[in-house]
């Protein structure tokens, strides 16, 4: 099967392309040629015109909760993959806080089986400790062999420093990162960030120092062990500074941020809308500014959604009783383009780097290239399309998003991977 994608501008942080529009010929899911094509080459090919659009290596979200196994009412591997494709992603890493947790090769096999044949590649992150309890490290060698790309007890931090140390030492054998949810548990447990707003709203506070302490603990343990630490969903000013210092020292420390943490502040909670309840909580303007600075200077390596589906029944509750988390797969490119690209915080190429290149590097995955013989794995964006978020159109099984009805500029218009293309709301075999 042949397909020609016409008139694309190519942006790839690891390759150099000029601004000229190019055609891409894909045969049986593999890039055959890039540039101008002869009539003969395009014989019998399906043709799609993308004038004004940009092709980038397929975007990758390294922090997704697929909820399967355990909470298939909220999301499944397949609906999560559908949401990823619709949102502009060709690859995702899924978090292990399922029921049962991803702490055995069997659960990894189950997820891989469910994802098989989809456009979106799914890479499981396994639990760092057995059943995420923080007592004994998980069978990392076996999990690695089964396909785990990192280890995390996400949803909670790894409980004790001694287990973090052991996990870092052990995972180092396979060069896999320990992905940490940073929250000192004796300080945490509240409903929102500690600030004047928590006082005004009467909500139990989570101090920002709860995050800073675990970031500091893990950085020091990364230094001591030589292991690889990735800070998930960074949200505080001090945490950004700690990661910056760690990088200056040359430590194996990386960090991701969610779109909501670089866009919203705890001012949003004034309506007690549970779609603003997440963990880490929304912080203050000073934290958001520090995060934007961290994105600019490279302290924060990548953007990830922390896509966390929750049922309506659970989210439609008294604020303090509602679960933490929002979905983000289908909004994050729009938010990043609106808040970072159009507001001139980051150039387009750096946004591509943070979505497509860096997450794969952290997880030791190959970055798809634009060249003959490479598997076609790409995201096509319209940087200027103005659109309105509509939760009723989400492919995700859940709708817990605070961005409903938000006007955004910039959108993924198509993704290509695994001999499939998602375009105009349709999954095409190519």
């Amino acid at each position, binding site marked *: 099967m042949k397909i020609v994608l016409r008139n694309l501008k190519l942006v790839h942080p690891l390759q150099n392309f000029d601004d000229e529009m190019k055609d891409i010929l894909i045969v049986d899911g593999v890039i055959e040629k890039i540039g101008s094509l002869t009539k003969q080459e395009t014989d019998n090919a399906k043709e799609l015109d993308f004038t004004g659009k940009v092709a980038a290596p397929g975007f990758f979200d390294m922090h997704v909760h697929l909820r399967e196994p355990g909470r298939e009412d909220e999301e499944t591997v397949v609906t999560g993959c559908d949401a990823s494709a619709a949102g502009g992603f060709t690859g995702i890493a899924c978090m292990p806080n399922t029921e049962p947790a991803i702490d055995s090769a069997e659960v990894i096999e189950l997820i891989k089986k469910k994802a098989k044949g989809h456009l979106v590649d799914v890479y499981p992150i396994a639990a760092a400790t057995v059943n995420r309890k923080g007592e004994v490290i998980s069978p990392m060698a076996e999990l690695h062999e089964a396909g785990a790309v990192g280890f995390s007890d996400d949803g909670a931090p790894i409980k004790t420093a001694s287990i973090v140390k052991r996990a870092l030492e052990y995972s180092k054998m396979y060069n896999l990162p320990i992905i940490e949810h940073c929250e000192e548990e004796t300080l945490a447990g509240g*409903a929102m960030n*500690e*600030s*004047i707003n*928590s*006082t*005004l*709203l*009467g*909500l*139990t*506070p989570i101090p920002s120092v709860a995050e800073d302490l675990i970031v500091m603990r893990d950085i020091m343990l990364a230094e001591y062990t030589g292991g690889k630490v990735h800070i998930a969903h960074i949200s505080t000013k001090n945490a950004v500074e700690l990661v910056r210092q760690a990088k200056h020292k040359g430590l194996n420390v990386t960090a991701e941020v969610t779109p909501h943490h670089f866009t919203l502040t705890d001012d949003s909670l004034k*309506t*007690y809308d549970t779609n603003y309840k997440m963990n880490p909580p929304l912080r203050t303007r000073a934290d958001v500014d520090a995060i934007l600075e961290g994105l600019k200077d490279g302290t924060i390596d990548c953007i990830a959604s922390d896509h966390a589906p929750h049922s309506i*029944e659970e989210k*439609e*509750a*008294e*604020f*303090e*009783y509602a679960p933490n988390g929002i979905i983000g797969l289908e909004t994050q490119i729009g938010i990043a383009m609106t808040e970072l690209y159009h507001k001139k915080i980051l150039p387009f190429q750096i946004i591509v780097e943070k979505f497509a290149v860096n997450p794969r590097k952290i997880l030791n995955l190959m970055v798809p290239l634009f060249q003959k013989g490479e598997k076609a794995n790409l995201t096509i964006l319209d940087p200027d399309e103005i659109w309105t978020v509509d939760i009723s159109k989400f492919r995700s099984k859940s709708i817990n998003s605070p961005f409903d009805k938000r006007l955004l500029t910039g959108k993924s218009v198509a993704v290509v991977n695994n001999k499939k293309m998602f375009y105009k709301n349709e999954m095409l075999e190519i």
Partner: protein
Amino acid sequence: MPLSSRHLLGLQGVPKEDIQLILDTATTFREVLERPVKKVPTLQGKTIVNLFYENSTRTRISFELAQKRLSADTVNFSISTSSVSKGETFKDTIRNIEAMKVDMVVVRHAAAGTPLYLTKLCDANIINAGDGIHEHPTQALLDIYSIHEKLGRLAGLKVCIVGDVAHSRVALSNIFGLKTMGAEVSVCGPSTMIPRQIEELGVKVYYNIDEAIQANDVLNVLRIQLERKAREYFPSLREYSNYFGITEERLEKNGKDILILHPGPINRGVEISSGVADGNRQIILQQVTNGVAVRMAVLYLLGTMN
């Protein structure tokens, strides 16, 4: 002039005119309470649900009495008799109650923000009878009413809220209401019980109770809520009592005529000594009486709006 909102969710943002109207109306009802027949037909035919998700004796009784004296039909729904334990969601419970055609809901709930959430789920007038550690507007209104009744003014008065300010819904409502009425508000308590950045609300902070007594006209002494894990925030009851407890000796030492309020129920010998609690500076029982009048005023003003 009616109130500017059809709900009373808190005192944050409530205009001075509204508070003044409630206080003035309460004065009228206060007189009713002195009559031999303490009942008026004002809310006849109105149905009010008292939705208490959290234990409360005095606030519920005060509301119930106020409702009965306004001739409203009242139903009590409390957690022990509710369907909550059967797993029904809050939303479903509210939908069911609304289907029974109620006019007003008085709600007490452990989760902050629940009264606001209620306004989105049903059409009734909502009155917050305390939500978590957020607000308790009728308590603050009765405190303000009682201060005004005793001292004849609010503007320029110096009022200090003493105790566990961080875990008190009474404190926040008092701060907003008193400041709106022109009083100068301060707080005093162990630093672990004073919320971060409270100064941003225009509130002075004292960590020394003697200084607070000297600088103020009124002390509103909060109850140490022993059931709310409050005890983890200070070393011992003894230390709290020694350093922040209001005692006669302390008041004498500072040689000052000061008005003492307490929302009750009091922990004698902890935040307040028996001598002070029964002494001639306090108006604790007048607050209780005024509470009924103030709640009558709120119910009347909201219940006759639509």
